[in-house]
């Protein structure tokens, strides 16, 4: 298929069960769109300063890193993904040592991928090395700072990917959202997808202390819909199908519900990089919440 939006994909993986659902999506996308897949593994964190002794992410042992060890880890990753790797797949494997977020961003800078693909924060044990050694999560930092769209598969349920036909784009009418819309419409057009534009009317934070009447809520829904029409509809008309909706509620819950309702294969949202990285992803912003909860892969775009 002639699709050049995901020509090069950087798949950052722990090569353990925690990345399995992301792997399913990564290999599926690479195969569907004939992408080059760079399988990137940050194998451990230096135990002291710039010491060559690192804590291996997979085995949690203290190991000396030398050429042999790196070759062994690369071979191990190859074995781990054996069932996906064959001659028809264009892939490479790289291994690095360091703090995962920083190394992933460094790799992205060198490789200039069209997409970074990350497994989610599953909270299971093989992530504990990452968690202990870095403030906030790898995922948040990468999503916040990457120069390209970042696709996250967090829940296993988000990984049953059978191609793209329904995309949901969530907007908050910000400038970053407009960038994310550009990306969404390009993907939708190239892959002949239906695109649903959605805005969640936040009835919790904005009006704290004051209960809006349903008339007021519905008035605001109308206004938001008019805004969506004015801002996005001229370009939506280029697609085979589209819809525009506004629901009121807690934004991240409504977006996840809306995507489920639309049977979305992909959710696209802006990531607001001006906000500080929070310590815990579960307390993070709206996009983080959507990433954690969505039933399909989520692409966030920060610039």
């Amino acid at each position, binding site marked *: 298929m002639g699709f050049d939006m995901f020509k090069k994909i950087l798949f950052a993986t722990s090569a353990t069960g925690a990345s*399995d*659902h992301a792997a399913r999506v990564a290999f599926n996308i690479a195969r569907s769109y004939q992408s080059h897949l760079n399988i990137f593994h940050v194998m451990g964190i230096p135990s002291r300063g710039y010491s060559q002794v690192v804590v291996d992410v997979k085995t949690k042992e203290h190991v000396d890193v030398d050429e042999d060890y790196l070759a062994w880890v690369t071979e191990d990753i190859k074995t781990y993904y054996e069932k996906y790797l064959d001659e028809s797949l264009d892939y490479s494997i790289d291994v690095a040592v360091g703090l995962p977020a920083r190394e992933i961003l460094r790799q992205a800078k060198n490789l200039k991928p069209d997409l970074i693909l990350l497994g989610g924060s599953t909270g299971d044990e093989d992530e504990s090395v990452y968690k202990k050694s870095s403030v906030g999560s790898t995922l948040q930092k990468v999503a916040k700072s990457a120069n390209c769209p970042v696709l996250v598969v967090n*829940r*296993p*349920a988000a*990984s*049953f*990917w*059978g*191609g793209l036909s*329904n995309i949901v784009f969530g907007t908050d009418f910000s400038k970053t959202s407009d960038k994310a819309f550009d990306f969404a419409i390009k993907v939708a057009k190239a892959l002949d997808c239906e695109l649903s534009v959605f805005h969640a009317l936040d009835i919790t934070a904005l009006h704290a202390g004051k209960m809006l009447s349903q008339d007021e809520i519905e008035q605001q829904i109308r206004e938001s819909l008019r805004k969506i029409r004015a801002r996005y509809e001229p370009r939506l008309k280029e697609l085979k199908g589209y819809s525009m909706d506004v629901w009121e509620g807690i934004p991240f819950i409504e977006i996840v519900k809306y995507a*489920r309702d639309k*049977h979305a294969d992909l959710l696209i949202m802006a990531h607001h990089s001006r906000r500080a990285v929070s310590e815990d992803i579960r307390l993070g912003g709206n996009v983080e919440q959507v990433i954690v909860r969505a*039933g399909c892969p989520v692409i966030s775009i920060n610039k």
Partner: protein
Amino acid sequence: MKKKILVIDDDLNIRDYLVSLFNDNGYDAYVAGDVKEGFNVAKKNKPDLITLDIELPGEWGPRFYRQLSQDPELKNIPVIVISGLSGHQYAVVNAVASFTKPFDRDELLKIVKETLI
């Protein structure tokens, strides 16, 4: 009249096992090996319940469910997911239940019975 169950699975062993299990318990069973065939069989026979595998050749189970839920004639047919993949429990959001292979036959029959009252 006997209730009809459609089994969508590409694994012949599972298919045969489920068909005999359902037949032995007084149901009529139909089979399909992929999403397209499943949809055609569902259209033709209007089953009362569908068991759905997740990983199927070509399109996957969740896609079948999407098609099903958009068809006015079929959208209310209950679906039970039966899959060997890990983490599939919520792959089909409105499924009646999810079973991981190998599954407990009595548990499955209990849910089928409850659903088909």
